[in-house]
């Protein structure tokens, strides 16, 4: 993966910069020792690594503002970092950058049940936002698989989704306001405890901007009352295409399940070995979950089961207990870990129109044979968000490159089928150079113009999202 050459002028500033930063931050919040900066050399896309010049861990919005102003004035690139769980390399450093980690900013600032929001510092983890309101039976809806570890800051940067967004939407649909520090150190408040922007929807464009427009330090999030209950049903089919048709029929019937998850044979076996959820051994597995009171759940599930029966399932099993439901979900949520026990893997997240599912799955199978690399598929079927997991051996010369080429072919396939490169993980460095397959040069120019507005010198996370060639002029001008 190509990254820009470190700027020697910036590297030469290191000592002065450390001294300057130590004036505005506590001693232990400026990490400059080479053994320690190594902790920040990668995120969850571990195939690519590069220790940063230094890392800082501010605790307040004011400190973030001080850090950014100092880096701005010195012309030093900054890479913001939440919990470092990005699967797209969103927090991958360059050797001449400052990593700005928000991990120490994890306070709950305000909980307001009457107005149904919570205000938190952005370093707080996704799951602990729900944790803060659970006692009152509330929850924060977006639930990425990494929710135990991932930070709200990263969720906002990548506009994270999760298994339950078919009903509840993704981060952007649950974000009411932010406090954000711009690269020049100025602090802006956008949105708040009310609905919809007054002027341009800046909140909408900040969410999903991959840390390139500013550093979000505080977020106002919508919280929801938990449903009375939820229950999944498992369905096994001996044909992917039939499973895809079943998904489409459920959606057309007027029922909106809270989640519809899909796994193919390779994933089913890996997850079953990992979680013992009682998954059947078949070509395709669906987990369909509905919510409500017991009677409401019974009624919705009976409609869903009726539809499934028309497609001759090899297995059809309603969860009988809370414990069984938990195990069914544990299997699904452990999919990445379970696949990781088989081999190294690369996880993609292209999205396709649900109607193209059978064609795309067939084509991925063909490509898998051509490349000689196995691929497992696990994904959010209701919204067409695929997660092909390509298995490869990092220690085998040439395997990573082969895997990258295979991955690129799958993502192009998704775009050609009417979909997109990434549904919830973000572009980062991983899909940067494929952007030209989805967008024409003027489309990318329009997006880069947004970065020009917020960060005219292109100092924030500059080598991400856009193909290096496309952003070169702007990045060079900044140097």
């Amino acid at each position, binding site marked *: 993966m190509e990254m820009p050459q470190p700027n020697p002028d910036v590297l030469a500033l290191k000592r002065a910069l450390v001294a300057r930063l130590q004036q505005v931050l506590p001693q232990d919040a400026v990490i400059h020792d080479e053994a320690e900066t190594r902790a920040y050399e990668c995120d969850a896309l571990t195939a690519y690594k590069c220790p940063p010049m230094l890392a800082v861990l501010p605790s307040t919005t004011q400190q973030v503002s001080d850090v950014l102003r100092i880096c701005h004035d010195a012309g030093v690139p900054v890479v913001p970092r939440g919990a470092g769980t990005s699967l797209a390399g969103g927090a991958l450093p360059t050797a001449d950058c400052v990593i700005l980690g928000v991990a120490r900013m994890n306070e709950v600032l305000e909980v307001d049940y009457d107005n149904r929001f919570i205000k938190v510092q952005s370093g707080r983890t996704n799951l602990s936002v729900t944790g803060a309101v659970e006692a009152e039976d509330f929850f924060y809806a977006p639930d990425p698989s990494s929710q135990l570890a991932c930070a709200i800051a990263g969720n906002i940067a990548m506009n994270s989704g999760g298994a339950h967004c078919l009903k509840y939407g993704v981060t952007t*649909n649950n974000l009411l306001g932010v406090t954000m520090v711009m690269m020049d150190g100025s602090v802006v408040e956008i949105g708040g405890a009310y609905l*919809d922007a*007054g*002027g341009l929807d800046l909140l*909408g464009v900040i969410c999903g901007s991959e840390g390139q427009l500013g550093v979000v330090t505080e977020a106002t999030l919508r919280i929801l009352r938990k449903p009375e209950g939820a229950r999944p049903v498992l369905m096994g089919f001996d044909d992917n295409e039939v499973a895809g048709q079943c998904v489409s029929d459920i959606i057309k019937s007027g029922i909106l399940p809270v989640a519809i998850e899909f796994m193919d044979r390779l994933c089913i076996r890996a997850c079953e070995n990992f979680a013992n959820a009682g998954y059947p051994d078949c070509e395709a597995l669906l987990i369909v979950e509905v919510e409500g009171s017991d009677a409401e759940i019974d009624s919705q599930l009976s409609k869903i089961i009726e539809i499934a029966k028309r497609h001759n399932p090899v297995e059809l099993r309603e969860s009988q207990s809370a414990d069984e439901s938990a195990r069914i979900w544990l299997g699904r949520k452990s999919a990445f870990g379970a696949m990781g026990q088989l081999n190294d893997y690369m996880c993609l997240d292209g999205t396709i129109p649900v109607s193209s599912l059978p064609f795309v799955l067939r084509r991925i199978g063909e490509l898998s044979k051509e490349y000689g690399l196995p691929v497992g598929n696990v994904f959010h079927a209701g919204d*067409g968000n695929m997660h092909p997991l390509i298995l490869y051996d990092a220690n085998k010369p040439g395997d990573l490159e082969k895997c990258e080429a295979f991955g690129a072919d799958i993502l192009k396939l998704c775009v050609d089928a009417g*979909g997109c490169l990434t*549904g919830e993980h973000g572009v980062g460095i991983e899909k940067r150079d494929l952007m030209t397959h989805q967008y024409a040069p*003027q489309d990318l120019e329009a997006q880069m113009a947004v970065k020009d507005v917020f960060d005219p010198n292109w100092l924030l996370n500059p080598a991400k999202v856009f193909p290096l060639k496309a952003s070169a002029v702007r990045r060079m001008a900044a140097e």
Partner: protein
Amino acid sequence: MRPETEAELAEFVAGLNGPVRIAGGGTRGIVGAEPVLSVAGLSGITLYEPGALTLVARAGTPVAEVEAALEAEGQQLAFEPMDHRELLGTTGEPTIGGVVAANISGPRRIQAGACRDFLLGVRYVDGLGQVIKNGGRVMKNVTGYDLVKLMAGSWGTLGVLSEVSLKVLPKSETQLTLAIGVADTRAAVDLMSTALKSPYEVSGAAYAPADGQVLLRIEGFADSVAYRIDRLRESLGGECIEMANSVTRWADLRDVRAFRDIDGDVWRLSVKPSDAPGIAERISADQTLFDWGGGLIWALMPKGTDLRARLGQFEGHATLVRASAQTMGELGRFQPENTRIKALTRAFRQKFDPRSVFNPGLMG
């Protein structure tokens, strides 16, 4: 100026020598620059896949045509866009592009989300006449920056929409409304808050002081609606309004028909729900309507009143929806922004429409 294709539209814009006012059906009360650039010629649904919950339509497609196509498949625009014609006394055919450009949402916004939450993709012509696309037709898409949200609610000031792609949802089998008498606005907001904190998925929570009643809407399959209405009534009391009447009541609320035949300016305020009673007191309007559990206030004010001046600082924003051209010019349609945000807005305008030809003066 009425182009019939996106290519013609792009050509028109590239050849512009001065400002234009962009119009779909022209029903949302926008006045300003002449001539009018009509997008109504770009019409027609280009893709509808009920099994994928997606619909793509050219910007000038009438909302009625979109809703009829959805109705035939038992689906709907869940954000329940308001029709401004009765309130504003405008004529014409509201278009889907107009709904998107103004980010128009109705009572269900509080549960389902706003228009912008259902917008999956856009194609638009920027101020230089270039055709730009962003987003797509799939429900989850984080590929590059989300200009889709930016275009929703930008009122044509950043580009002329040529095509929009929307997520649609199943239409509910039935709906019922619980009507509960309350003493005042504070009691109404408290009651709505209690209902919205329940697990019963209230899809509308409004209060009309003139009727002294809070309305709570429940939608879904018949057995589930009956169950949830019963549970709410057990704890909150009230009378149940059956389906046909419920549909009418919410359409009246959505289109603010209560202010239709009464003289005066109409303001729309988005606020923190619990602030609503205090704000209503401070503006002392001739009439008010509360939607979104109190988070949306419709206020009927004596003509020419500067509501924002009466209100002073508050968390939220106030939009002038109906007023004379003179008042609109003096007070401005949109809530003024602070210096930093205003600078960002201006910079956006400069990047997207460097010649300032689209709806100049309307926004920022």
